[in-house]
């Protein structure tokens, strides 16, 4: 095989320690966010303070690793300064790209810091070439993180038409809804992932024992009930078990996570520039193992070697794996 492009591996870091682990494991690029509501993984105990961000970017650059900073929630009216400051700080710290979703924030970044690369977050749910072209034309967006609702064929068609790079999720948890446009969590809890960066917040989760069964509750609604010997799933609305008509079960998605590693050749042929690992909320051990394994797969592919099929199975934590929308099974 010749002409195999070398795909960029974009890896998650929820903490400075995870950033160092991911770099050690072979990440080309780290993505991370500030410890506040400016990023869409605003979970307690995660993310970077300003000094940590500055130090971590310097640490990564010394090791020839890039850092992308996700400022990908939608600023609250009347409080936009928090988001603007985050962008200004990234520019000052030398971040390699800003990952943005909000139109107003894209306008701000393009206006104030035109020299800093702008990437379109998956939270913008730009699922077609027209939308992507709108962002490249208006804000000089250089890369789009593709929504996890597209098939490989659709990605290839998009790449033929647009004049920016694309980044595709390859491994980790899976949102089945168009992201950045989902109010399921706020309907149940009052906390909007778009505004606060937290989906299905732990503060609204409860588990209740009912005889031999364990019930997982989010807000006022039951998401699951399982036998006590089965690990209780975290109550996220789109992964819950419900009844509709004669159907009983996982209406929106089975509790699976994404493993599209076998599709790396197809994604490369579809013109994808970068592969993204989900998991900023994960610990160092998981991040290290996922990055190391995918590093090997990506390097094997670039070297013309076959791709091992099940290399990531040990990271699935007992969940089944899916190739998500990339294969046409949703259609």
């Amino acid at each position, binding site marked *: 095989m010749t002409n195999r492009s070398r795909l960029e591996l974009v890896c998650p870091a929820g903490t400075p320690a995870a950033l160092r682990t991911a770099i050690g494991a072979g990440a080309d690029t780290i993505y991370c966010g500030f410890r506040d509501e400016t990023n869409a993984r605003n979970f307690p105990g995660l993310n970077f303070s300003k000094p940590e961000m500055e130090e971590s970017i310097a640490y990564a650059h010394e090791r020839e690793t890039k850092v992308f900073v996700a400022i990908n929630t*939608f*600023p*609250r*009216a*009347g409080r*936009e300064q928090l988001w603007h400051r985050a962008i200004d700080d990234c520019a000052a710290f030398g971040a390699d790209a800003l990952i943005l*979703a*909000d*139109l*107003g*924030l894209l*306008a701000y970044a393009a206006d104030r810091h035109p020299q800093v690369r702008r990437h379109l977050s998956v939270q*913008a749910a*730009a*699922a*077609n070439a*027209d*939308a992507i072209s*709108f*962002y490249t*034309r208006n804000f000089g967006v250089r890369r789009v993180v593709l*929504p996890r*609702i*597209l098939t490989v064929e*659709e990605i290839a*068609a998009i790449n033929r038409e647009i004049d920016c790079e694309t980044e595709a999720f390859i491994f980790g948890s899976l949102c*089945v*809804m*168009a992201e950045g*446009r989902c*109010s*399921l969590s*706020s*309907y*149940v809890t*009052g906390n909007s992932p*778009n*505004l606060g960066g937290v989906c299905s917040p732990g503060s609204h989760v409860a588990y209740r024992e009912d005889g031999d069964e364990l019930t997982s509750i989010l*807000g*006022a*609604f*039951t*998401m*699951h*009930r399982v036998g006590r010997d089965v690990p209780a799933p975290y109550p996220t609305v789109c992964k*819950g*078990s*419900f*009844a*509709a*008509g004669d*159907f*009983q079960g996982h*209406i*929106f*998605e089975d509790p699976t996570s994404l493993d599209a590693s076998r599709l790396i050749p197809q994604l490369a042929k579809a013109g994808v520039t970068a592969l993204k690992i989900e998991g900023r909320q994960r610990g160092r051990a998981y991040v290290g193992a996922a990055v190391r394994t995918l590093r090997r797969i990506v390097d094997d592919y670039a070297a013309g070697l076959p791709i091992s099929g099940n290399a990531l199975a040990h990271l699935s934590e007992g969940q089944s794996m899916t190739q998500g*929308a990339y294969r046409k*099974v*949703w*259609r």
Partner: protein
Amino acid sequence: MAEDKSPPRMSLTMGPLLFNWPIGEWSDFYARLADEAPVDTVHIGEVVCSKRLPFYLDAVPGAVERLRRAGKTVVFSTLALITLPRERRDSADIVHNTECEVEVNDIAALAHLTEGQTFRTGPYINVYNESTLRFLARLGASCVCLPPELPIDTVDVLGNMARSLRMGCEVWSFGRIPLAMSGRCYHARIAGLTKDSCQFICARDRDGLTVDTVDGAHFLAINGVQTLSHTYCNMIGDAERLLRAGVTALRLSPQSCDMIAVSRAFRDRLDGKTGAEEAMRRIGEICGDAPFSNGFLFGKAGAEMISGRNSA
């Protein structure tokens, strides 16, 4: 910034029909809206599933003409999640039509605007803050329908800013609340079918199919690729508060209940012919056993109904 001394008259908008109704019911609905409903603006167009459009496309020109003759402003709404080439073409065609203003529900439609063309944004476009509103105004937006999850303090900021920018500002005020869109059709999925082989089973459910928790509590409703609330949003008791926030129109979203009666109840409330309590009672009678919600407006879970806050 100069502000009007008295707020302008709040208008009523009938949003696009989100469900897959048979063509006969579709036509009757728009005919009755034209003839009987005290709404100012009526949206037509397929927001949820592009496969449904061929069933009623031929009836659109007649409906538009009848609505216009009745003095209604007609707006064409675009699809909320565009992925297929056919959907992109349809969307471009709608934007290029010269007949009606367009409501954009996927950013893709903005790419087709011609210089100087005005447009509206629907509830599926994320307008959360001043910078976004300003950007859209510069681009030619004449009206925004805010995302239904926005709380009143945000509506205050954006409504008053929209007024100073001379834009309309709409708030989702009646009907099941759109909560999520997916690439996957849930009506098809639970019937063991896929989106391409769906057999249009969504047409069985005039208001979407209710999703219950394992405890039997009504929770959500599925409508093809769309997930809605089970509750009906009902802001009839909050109309005064919304007017103070600078909101210029309340959006009513079609359900299978008597939407003429719903729009009359809202109009009477806005005109001060009924009090909030009486208005609420009337909506309750029209909707039968549908539970109501307005929790998003008060920063609570969207499923909640917060009462007695209309003068907050």
